[in-house]
């Protein structure tokens, strides 16, 4: 295993509510996510998968514990710093509501670049080429002008993947990216994610509860009741 880590967590806990409604979603998670690999986080519903991912991605603050992503410690960053960090180093694919409904597919793909302040006319040639390559690979060329409502669920997820990959982030998080898809579309999306790891050297962390989906991954981390109970490599 390479010693390069895309992300790591130490002693991570996360609680919600207080008093009667207190819930310990994470109870001390230690986890290393190696770079250039496709990791699946599995576990039963309510085991804390989404919460873990949110903490790792800087979408939420853990109650205690530390998180490092791309060599940077997330604790102590204020909201603005976290936001900028996500923009520059993290890509996301969610189960649903991935895309802004009023933007076209192409505009959605460029959104993070634009949010970081890069105007359309300043995009470098390299970036344009990368965009063309990704769009081509994902088979979206003919769909770029469409709005999300005019795309199928699988197409919407592919647009989200394109968006996540475009800026070559240190790590891509995907929370149940195939949760809403039929098996054919699921297979397509999962292979695309694996392809990005193999061919582009991308690091991908995917939350899923489908064993089928986990087969596409390199590593599997199993979570139960807020703790890591198992960690294994998937046989090729």
């Amino acid at each position, binding site marked *: 295993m390479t010693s390069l880590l895309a992300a790591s967590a130490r002693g991570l806990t996360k609680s919600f509510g207080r008093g009667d409604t207190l819930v310990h979603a994470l109870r001390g998670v230690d986890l290393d996510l190696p770079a250039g690999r496709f990791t699946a986080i599995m576990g039963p519903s309510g085991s804390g998968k*989404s919460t873990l991912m*949110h903490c790792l*991605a800087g*979408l*939420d603050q853990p109650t205690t514990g530390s998180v490092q992503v791309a060599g940077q410690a997330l604790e102590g960053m204020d*909201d*603005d710093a976290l*936001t*900028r960090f*996500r*923009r*520059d180093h993290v890509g*996301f694919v*969610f189960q649903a*509501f*991935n895309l*802004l*409904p*009023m*933007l076209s597919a192409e505009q959605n793909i460029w*959104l*993070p670049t*634009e*949010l*970081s*302040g890069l105007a359309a006319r300043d995009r470098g040639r390299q970036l344009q080429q990368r965009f063309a390559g990704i769009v081509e690979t994902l088979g979206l060329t003919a769909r770029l002008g469409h*709005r999300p*409502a005019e795309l199928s*669920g699988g197409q919407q997820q592919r647009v989200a993947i394109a*968006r996540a990959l475009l800026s070559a982030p240190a790590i891509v998080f995907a929370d149940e990216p195939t949760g809403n898809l039929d098996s054919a579309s699921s297979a397509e999306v999962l292979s695309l994610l694996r392809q990005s790891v193999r061919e582009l050297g991308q690091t991908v962390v995917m939350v899923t509860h489908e064993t089928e989906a986990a087969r596409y991954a390199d590593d599997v981390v199993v979570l139960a009741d807020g703790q890591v109970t198992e960690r294994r490599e998937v046989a090729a």
Partner: protein
Amino acid sequence: MRTVLLASLRTHTRRYGAALLAVVIGSAFIVVTAALSSSMREGLTAGLGQPYDGADAVVDSPSAADAARLLDAARTDGADAWLIGWTMQQVASGTAGETSVIDTDIGQLPDRPDRRWQELVEGRFPGGPGEAVVDSNTAKVERIGVGDRLRIGTGSDALDVAVVGLVDSPSTYAYASVYLLWPELVRWQDQLFVTSLAWAGPDAGTAIRAVVPDADVVAVDAFVQDLHQQVNNGVDIVQVVVLLFGAIALVVGILVINNTFTILFAQRMRDFALLRCVGATRRQVLRSVRLESLALGVLAAVLGVLAGLGAGHGLVALVRSQWPEARLGTAHVAPAWLAGAAGVAVVVTVVAAWLPTRRAVRVSPLAALRPDDSTRVRTRSGRIRLALGGLAVGVGVLALAAAVATANVGALAVGGTAVFVGVLLFGPVLVPALIRAAGPLTQRLLGPAGRLAAGNAVRNPRRTAATTASLLVGVTLTTAVLAGMASSRAALAADMDEQHPIDLAVTGTGPLPAETLDRLEAIDGVAAAVPVPGAVARIGDLDPLPLLPATVDGDAKVLYGDLPVPGPDQVLVPWDLVGDGLEVGDLVPVTVGDTTRELRVAGGEGWGEAALVRRTTLDRLAPGAPTQAVWLRAAEDADPEDLAGSVEAVAAPVDAGVENGLARRAYVDTQLDVLTGGVVGLLAIAVVIALVGIGNTLGLSVLERGREHALLRALGLTRRQVRRMLAAEAVLLSVVATVLGTVLGVAFAWTAVRALVQPAVHGAGLVLPWGQLALVVTISALAGLLAAVLPSRRAARITPAAGLSLD
């Protein structure tokens, strides 16, 4: 369905907050109007009959001369008579160094003590000549006390009196600021306006008709009843006018609630569909949402009536304690008004909810199962709407053209309304187009947040149009009023220049000493002073009158327009001296010293108590005439009353009269300011409701877009950018509505000026009050920002992780 209704009321009531506020403001306005008008009515009708106590008959509106004859006759007949009437005179109070001058009304104090309807509050009533009583409110405002001396009138008619008492008037109708006994008041008989004369004595009708055969003699009761009727009619008119603004506010309120229901129902479409899926009939869903709107209407009615009662009574109490001179009575809001305001609130709410509820239940059960596509880009509804809009604009423009051609107010109103409705119907196309046009600017200013804002602002064209429509109503009316008033003011200014060509004309009864000019020139607030030569002349049978030339060296420095130039053989006599033996067109001898010329009489005014002749005529009558008058131009920022006081202080010791054109100008200006301020103030209520509506739309959109904002935050939009995005959206909406409204308002003002002002004042044109219009746009942009504060804070507060799990 009961549980569903109650649960949804519980969950959604907070989201109805802004809509509720809109209706509450509207219905509270009605109650406040009722409270104010009732107290106004009470104040105005109280004691109306008191001045006529003890009279046996009343003569309605006699001429001043008839009234004087009747007063004299009463004295010789052994009867008793007194009049209710006024003359407007300048009243100077204070010491020579610190004079304050007001133009105010002087009334009669009845001779016989038991006829004096004025109530003495301090001092005593006058016992003889040289004494006066002053109304206690006037005394308070003008800081006049018992023992002070007043100089009433100017020039040769001026009267010096001592204030011996302060009085209250039981009747606002008969009220005057200063009361004099008839022997003192009679000097202004020419300028006296008499509303009525009370007569006490046997056989009143016969006795009166013996003196004035065609007198309009009325029984006291009938006369007082008639007064009541007149006052009530006056209050009714005011009430109707004010309620008109209430109606405008309510129309805006309807737009806001309608929009709220539309948005909320759109957000709840899946709930409705789910209800249908699990077996609710269309009728059940419909009844449930209708009941919901009814409940909201009832709540708004209760709150509105309570708020209105509180605000109305509070306002009346405040005015009564702070401004007793406003003479308000106590407020009684009749139950009918409360019921009316409550009914309006309920009806307005239910009506505004009608269409959205119908749309809501048309949802098919399947909609619950389909994925959410909250932003369908194109809706099919447009065509009919656009066609209707085109029709309305066409009809409206024709009506406006007709209005301009025929100066018809009705056509103007119909045309204006039709055009406006047409523009509202075009809204879903027009407003987004304008926002798109403004989009690049926000993007330039705010970067990606600005671009997203422009996109958000137009993603639901109908909602955008409905949101801006409410503001459009208020802004269009406001700017139309502002531009119309500015134009009327400019049109009047030309008129004013003609009527009051000189700010202050100081005219001596004899030659003015040399230092008078210097002292006048030295007064703070005098921009220019021009000495005018002249001589005292005898014109026909008139009292000696100064004769001035119509043109003087350097008069351009003080004159606004040109003075009328008399012909070579003409003399211009002040209008109030024409008549009674000297008529326009008469050929009269004009004598200065021992030189006499025959001149033909014409009338005129604006230069003070003097006659005007050609320069050459004056030179022939009085060669080398000394300074007889000084004409002054006030500085731009001079206070008319202060300046008049200072000038009076210089003029009084040399027995010179002061013609105060500046005060008349200032009076007209104030009237226009008050009118503009009042109308804009009343319209402001509609504007406030509209802004509540914008905040509301934005707030509801924020709820709706919770996941989107979370996604944007996850992808790298900072908190501040989220806030900016929403603020930019609100500002875009409000500024576009304001600019569109301003264009419409100015266009309406232009047609109104063409149709109404131009026929009356030749050469009147549209004058744009650029400063005020810029202020309107600025205020609405700021208000838009304000409207965005709460929603954007709420949107920015939510963490991305929490937002993503929103449902």
